[in-house]
């Protein structure tokens, strides 16, 4: 205290007015920084988020009879393989390996998909035959309308293993 006068000191408050405003300003500063950061992040990502449900996009693959049982047909434009199982069920398997996303190739003589990147292998239903991939191939829903096979390439479905309900029958 600079003042030399001898009057009783007022009790020193725990937080002085100066401390209080100092704290308040700091708090406001931090708040402002957080807001600006939030604004920047939402600015960058909101326009680019493709997570919202994509519209149904039907791609006509062809009449049911044109696909032999136990055979695979590549639709590179739609990024899928249309695989018809031994029992006649259809599944549209995504081209993307479930390990790290490379494009798989169909090996006709061995009846399996093989990934050129780290040699994961999948069978005709998309089930894993060989790691490092640990999940069956993703697939697109198949619809059969009036004997024509259509694939909804707007909806990609993920799965752990193959299940009966993933196939479509004529």
């Amino acid at each position: 205290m600079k003042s030399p006068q001898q009057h009783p000191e007022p009790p020193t408050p725990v937080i002085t007015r100066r401390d209080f405003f100092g704290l308040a300003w700091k708090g406001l500063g931090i708040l402002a920084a957080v807001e600006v950061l939030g604004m920047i992040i939402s600015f960058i990502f909101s326009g680019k988020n493709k997570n919202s449900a994509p519209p149904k996009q039907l791609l006509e693959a062809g009449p049911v009879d044109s696909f032999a049982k136990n055979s695979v047909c590549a639709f590179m434009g739609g990024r899928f393989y249309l695989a018809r199982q031994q029992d006649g069920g259809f599944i549209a398997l995504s081209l993307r390996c479930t390990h790290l996303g490379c494009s798989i190739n169909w090996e006709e003589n061995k009846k399996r998909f093989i990934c050129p990147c780290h040699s994961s292998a999948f069978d005709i239903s998309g089930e894993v035959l060989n790691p490092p991939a640990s999940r069956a191939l993703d697939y697109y829903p198949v619809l059969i309308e009036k004997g024509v096979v259509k694939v909804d390439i707007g909806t990609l479905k993920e799965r752990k293993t193959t299940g009966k309900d993933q196939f479509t029958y004529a």
Partner: protein
Amino acid sequence: MRTIFLHLHPQKVNASALRINRTFGLGGMAALLIAVQLLTGILLRFYYIQNPASAYDSILFLKNNVLFGQFVRNIHYWSGVFLLMIAFLHFLRVFFTGAFRGSRRVNWWFGLVLLLLIVFANFTGYLLPWDQLAYWAITVSTNIIGYLPLAGDALRTAIIGGRELNGSTLQNFFNFHTAVLPLLMVVLVIYHFWRVRKSGGIMLPGTPDNSEMVPVMPYLVFREFIAALVLLAVLFATSALFNAPLLEKANPVYSMNPTKAPWYFAGVQELLMHFHPFFAAFVIPLLVMLFLICIPLIKIDDTQEGHWFISERGRQTAKSTAVFAIAVTLAGIFFNAWVMNFEIMLPGVPAWISNGIFPAVILLVLMAAFFYFHLNRKMLTKAELVQAAFVFIMMAFIVLTVVGVFFRGKDMELVWPWNV
């Protein structure tokens, strides 16, 4: 300009600070290479077009129709490689001379941030040519992010702006590469230099008053000038002799065999061949980062500061630990590749146990044995122990990277380098 440059220097420096084996001038070289990247990067921007339809063709145009186009591109490519290597060596130098404690620790942390920024600058640049190499390396690397727990998938989608690489990925990467990261780097480098001065110059052993102070101009500046000339000569010669790679234009339906992450992530990718992604891409890198961040906070008796490898005993331990790390890492790689693979051997067990916890425990047991039977007998100080741990991590990382880059061929099988 001259005064700005001189302002980053003190008036005088300690004569022994000028001895080349104090720092090997690595920090200064890194700064110079960042300047080279800024300059060549801005030149490249005069021709580069950041959309998937034209990016590749703009590079072809640069190569074939622009005077010195190929040369400038090569310099940018090689300087990026050199920069990462030199920044890494600089980081090793700082660690092994113990120059990261006390007031220097702030610069240790900012240095780690700079190292990360340089990795990201290289990574974001890698995608820009939009050729097969770029497309698949970035596909594989960004898919690793998808394995992070909880937010992994959302984070990956946000970074690449969709489910697979597309125009927004390229625009994001381009913007980070040519605006965000360079700006951050320039600011941090200036701060980094300023902090070196604030800590009283570079780390020197013992009491500094045993040697004379010499003026910066000309003693230090002249040496910096020579170092800069030699570095630039090596860089230009490399760029004249070896072209930056450019394969065919990216083709999303045709993957390359093998597909490798960029070389600085080859170590992580190699780890991924042996560990469940949750461990390889998340737990292990996170623990290493945490260790590096915490190093300067470990309280030690600081009488040995500034000596390379702390002491003679420290040097010996560092050597034996390095040999141990090389042996263990190589043995692990071969064992997993040729003798047995736990995931195939234990098909009923979830992958995160058979391929995660299981090998991690084996590794920890080996490390504990090494500690108990070797390090423990040497009565090391705390600082020497921390140094041994650091040597182990760095050596393992280097071995993984070398194997990933030079010994992985078709189908990611182990092969000799001349068959890669």
